[in-house]
């Protein structure tokens, strides 16, 4: 890269390459409206992750969760498991971008002797909550002053409209075609069809189906858009040393970084309109890991809309800026034949909209060799997290 763009910055992280490993993963069912609460979903994911790690709830002495949602915090943990012990905790974990940076928080706590086994958990029940409009992505945004007064009155709301506008600009600047966006949707659906736990498991989608799906806001179609789901997942991080004593195959944290956009979630004002803060996140994460994009066997990246996948693929360095449309054509993203196996669980588009936590769990499965749509011989996996304002990059390897 020639110079560093000035529309955002990298959060400064210490080198934790090789310090910690992910040793337990747990998931609930992923569904449409289930009637369950997010707290109940979080508890089930936590219980399964702890069991997968070969630990007891009393062994978990660190917890990272989403402070913005706070559905499963320390109090909920103790209530669920009947425990009372001291726990280190941070509200800067959970899903989205933070599903990628939670292992960094865990590493810092573990290295400082504040915790031994750290659980990161993220549940969501937006499919259930949608009916009563208590929660969901649009509602959060509509409360921000600039959006409420300078965007919503002009019909620029909610996310499908923002990303339709970004998609259009990507098409205008780089010649990206509708079928190229469709290639992302089709690859994710192909993977979901291979994954019995995916919400869209039984539903096929061809590129013709994609091109026949209705526009929500041209050029963005229904099939460019993520699902709305209930579900949750969790994972347990411990020191690389301690991981040797535990039953699960060890997946080591090699690199982690966070990038921030100076314009926050005001997408309309981001200087580089067709980029993500991965520009500030991926290079330092790969540098910490001592790896490059060419070394990556499997990528899971936050995919609320197909254009976000394309932008992240570019911004993480898998292809030059503007060339992701041509790059993803054909079988590039397929788990078994592709140059860049992408979201082999089906992603937010076709697996479940659980805001990235399942993306990290899927990477762990891929590196253990136990995924439903297994990438043959996967040794290096990367997660690209995204919220608009933030991006994170998490580089994991098989031990």
């Amino acid at each position, binding site marked *: 890269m020639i110079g560093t763009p000035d529309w955002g910055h990298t959060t400064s992280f210490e080198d934790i390459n090789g310090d910690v490993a992910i040793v337990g993963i747990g998931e609930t069912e992923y569904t449409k409206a289930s009637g369950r609460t997010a707290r109940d979903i979080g508890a089930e994911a936590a219980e399964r992750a702890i069991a997968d790690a070969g630990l007891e709830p009393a062994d978990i002495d660190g917890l990272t969760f989403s402070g913005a949602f706070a559905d499963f915090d320390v109090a909920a943990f103790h209530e669920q498991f009947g425990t009372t012990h001291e726990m280190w905790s941070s509200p800067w974990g959970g899903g989205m971008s933070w599903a990628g940076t939670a292992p960094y928080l865990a590493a810092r706590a573990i290295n400082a002797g504040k915790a031994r086994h750290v659980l990161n958990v993220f549940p969501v029940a937006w499919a259930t909550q949608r009916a009563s*409009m*208590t*929660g969901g992505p*649009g*509602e*959060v945004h*509509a*409360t921000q*002053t*600039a959006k*409420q*007064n*300078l*965007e*919503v*009155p*002009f*019909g*620029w*709301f*909610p996310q*499908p*409209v923002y990303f*339709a*506008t*970004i998609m*259009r*600009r990507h098409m*205008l600047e780089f010649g990206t075609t509708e079928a190229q966006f469709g290639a992302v949707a089709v690859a994710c659906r192909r993977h979901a069809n291979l994954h019995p736990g995916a919400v869209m498991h039984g539903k096929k989608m061809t590129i013709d189906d994609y091109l026949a799906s*209705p*526009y*929500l*806001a*041209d*050029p*963005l179609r229904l099939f460019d858009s993520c699902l709305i789901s209930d579900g949750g997942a969790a994972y347990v991080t411990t020191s690389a040393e301690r991981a040797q004593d535990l039953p699960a195959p060890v997946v080591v944290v090699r690199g982690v970084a966070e990038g921030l956009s100076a314009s926050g979630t*005001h997408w*309309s*004002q981001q*200087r580089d*309109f067709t980029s993500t803060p991965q520009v500030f996140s991926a290079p330092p994460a790969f540098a910490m890991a001592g790896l490059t994009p060419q070394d990556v066997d499997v990528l899971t990246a936050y995919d609320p809309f197909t254009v976000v996948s394309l932008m992240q693929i570019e911004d993480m360095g898998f292809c030059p800026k503007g060339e992701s449309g041509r790059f993803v054509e054909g079988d590039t993203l397929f788990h078994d034949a592709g140059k860049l196996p992408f979201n082999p669980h089906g992603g937010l588009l076709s697996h479940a909209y659980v805001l990235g936590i399942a993306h990290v769990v899927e990477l762990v499965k891929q590196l253990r060799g136990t995924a439903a749509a297994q990438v043959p011989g996967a040794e290096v996996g990367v997660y690209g997290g995204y919220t608009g304002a933030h991006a994170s990059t998490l580089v994991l390897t098989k031990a």
Partner: protein
Amino acid sequence: MAIKRADFPLPDLEDELTKEFFAGAARNELVIPRCTACGAWVWYPEPACPACGGELAWTSTSGRARLFSWAVVRRPFLPAFAEMIPFVTALVALEEAPEVRIVTYIVDTDPQELTADLPLEVTFRPLSFPTVPDRAVAVPMFRPRP
């Protein structure tokens, strides 16, 4: 979290940071905050210049802009929009300060005619929604320049 304001999604004309934008529109003026110290245009509005801390003054502009990007909205994402669809919502780059992107409606043209960087001019129109009876707010919209 929910928006309690009865006139939503009309703009809140009491909002300190943005009310001058709509006051300008009511006088047929497109005004944008500009730093009185360093001259930077500041958008979205801030309490002070993020570059130098200087005082901001709402400043008249030419009302000329270029089409940066747009979407043709086909789903009524809010009940207020139900009778408007399809409509074109867009980002336009101000001629004297292209880094200022204004979110607006594109009017008086067929969406098929829109192209990148299309020259536009402001037109002030009353904005009203059937869900907010008997209220209208003058807002800047944009149309192709003749």
